[in-house]
């Protein structure tokens, strides 16, 4: 089901609406937010200089640091009194990123999340269990409002206490699961340990995944666990851009549709800031067209993707972004080789003898970067001989070497021994960072 008429606009209709909204939004930000005004003045720009969508690239970028510099309310365009919701993302370094929503912002946010739910196959008949942690994280409440708006029955079970989650899932007849992909796999594993067959004893048929990327092999794991007809889609967003609802995969699984009437996407070269043509890979930059409380103009997401404008098989005409190759922040540089943890995951998940969980440790030993990866052995037939186990470790190492040009030491561990995650998985430990100077 296509939720909104804007999702099938012609390119001309969409661009007309985008331009009208962009002009209004730039003027609003310029007038109401000192930080935007001073940046534009520095660049010699005034709102009336924006006369076409092509003028967008003249505007300065907004970055995460701007939130920190204007903590907590400095980027707000309205008094906090006019806000009806405040969220914050946990800052691992420095202060958290604080975001606020007016009543109108909440309506727009809810609308875009409802589209994401519809993209993933949800309907008003679904019983939705939200296994994202509630609280300051935007994921849980975002999906909560969107699914409620659609008319689904929403159970806010939050994350954690997996056995109880499964009890609810079974007793409520849950049909739709909202979780991080790693938690969804964990729930399935625990259900099996409890003697349940997720495909027969549970009714979950739809998974709306977010909070972290889902690689293709991970999606295959979902089918194995939850059934071949399971609808496993992922969606994308971040609190600076409302939260979830920016984009989501449709059932054709050809990338994530962006709600372009609310967000203009661009892809730039992260080094030079230059805008790249459709189809080229670079950093995603988003301009919000309807955010009143906290305008966001050319926000650098740090996420790497490509954009495609061809109409989709699903009937929608909105721009699609490719599933993420990774956050530019997450990129590891190992002895000069650039690698995203998601690429390592792709290689690992294609090897059936090992499980879907892994742990990467990067250290510097004698001034050389070394990487070791722990993987869980799941194929008992290799216990025939030490040689077979050793061959498996060699094969994992060889595949990483040939696909990524990366040399890593492989440690096989027993199944169930690596850490499971209820929220975003943290699978990389970079011990090199802790050695650096703190300045």
């Amino acid at each position, binding site marked *: 089901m296509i939720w909104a008429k804007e999702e099938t606009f012609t390119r001309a209709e969409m661009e007309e609406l985008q331009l009208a909204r962009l002009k209004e939004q730039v003027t609003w930000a310029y007038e109401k937010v000192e930080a935007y005004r001073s940046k534009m003045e520095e660049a010699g720009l005034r709102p009336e200089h924006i006369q076409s969508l092509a003028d967008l690239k003249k505007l300065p970028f907004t970055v995460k640091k701007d939130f920190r510099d204007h903590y907590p309310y400095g980027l707000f365009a309205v008094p906090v009194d006019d806000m009806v919701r405040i969220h914050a993302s946990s800052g691992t370094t420095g202060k958290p990123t604080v975001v606020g929503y007016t009543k109108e912002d909440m309506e727009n946010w809810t609308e875009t999340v409802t589209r994401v739910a519809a993209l993933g196959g949800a309907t008003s008949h679904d019983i939705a269990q939200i296994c994202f942690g509630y609280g300051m994280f935007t994921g849980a409440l975002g999906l909560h409002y969107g699914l409620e708006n659609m008319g689904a029955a929403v159970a806010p079970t939050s994350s954690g206490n997996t056995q109880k989650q499964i009890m609810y899932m079974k007793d409520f007849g849950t049909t739709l699961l909202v979780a991080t992909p790693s938690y969804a796999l964990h729930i399935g594993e625990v259900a099996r340990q409890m003697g349940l067959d997720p495909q027969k004893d549970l009714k979950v048929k739809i998974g709306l995944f977010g909070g972290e990327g889902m690689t293709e092999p991970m999606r295959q794991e979902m089918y194995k666990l939850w059934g071949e007809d399971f609808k496993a889609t992922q969606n994308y967003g971040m609190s600076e851009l409302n939260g979830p609802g920016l984009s989501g995969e449709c059932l054709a699984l050809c990338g994530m549709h962006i709600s372009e009437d609310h967000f203009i996407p661009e892809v730039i070269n992260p080094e030079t800031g230059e805008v790249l043509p459709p189809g080229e890979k670079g950093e995603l930059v988003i301009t919000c067209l309807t955010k009143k409380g906290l305008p966001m103009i050319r926000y650098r997401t740090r996420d790497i993707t490509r954009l495609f404008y061809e109409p989709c098989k699903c009937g929608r005409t909105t721009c699609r972004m490719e599933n993420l190759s990774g956050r530019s922040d997450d990129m590891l540089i190992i002895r000069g080789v650039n690698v995203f943890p998601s690429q390592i995951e792709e290689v690992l998940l294609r090897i059936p003898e090992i499980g879907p969980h892994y742990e990467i440790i990067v250290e510097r030993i004698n001034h050389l970067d070394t990487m070791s990866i722990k993987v869980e*052995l*799941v194929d*008992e*037939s290799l*216990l*025939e*001989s*030490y040689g077979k*186990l050793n061959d498996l*470790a060699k094969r994992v190492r060889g595949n990483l070497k040939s696909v990524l040009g990366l040399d890593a030491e492989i*440690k*096989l*561990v*027993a*199944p*169930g*021994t690596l850490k499971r995650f209820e929220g975003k998985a943290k699978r990389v430990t970079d011990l090199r960072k802790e050695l650096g100077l703190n300045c």
Partner: protein
Amino acid sequence: MVKQLSVFVENEVGSLAKVTRVLRENNISIRAIASFDSPEFGILRLIVDKTGEAKRVLTENNFIVKLTDVLAIELVDKPGELDRVMWILADAKLEINYIYSFVLRGHKEPLMIINLDRMEEAEKVLLQNQINVTTKLMEE
């Protein structure tokens, strides 16, 4: 032939103890055990009194376990006995993967556990040479 349990163990402090604890808690008795030094991980091989149950409880405790066939060979307790067996297999061009011996035999004769790629052939050739290959361990 008898069944042996092969359990994946990591090369770290306490990894064998974790296995033996599960067996103790389930009142399973070890008849023979072997583990060899290996750098990262190893395979612990066990012969126990209740094989099926041991596999089940170890699997429930997140161990990865495989059942494999091995030959249990009864020897006479006198010098040269093992040598005789080894030459029977060597002369038949049968390659041994590993060998270990039994823990406790009371008044019975010593028992060796061996694994080879061509198990049936080995069993046959040993029997032809009047070496007793037993199958009775599991019923003890």
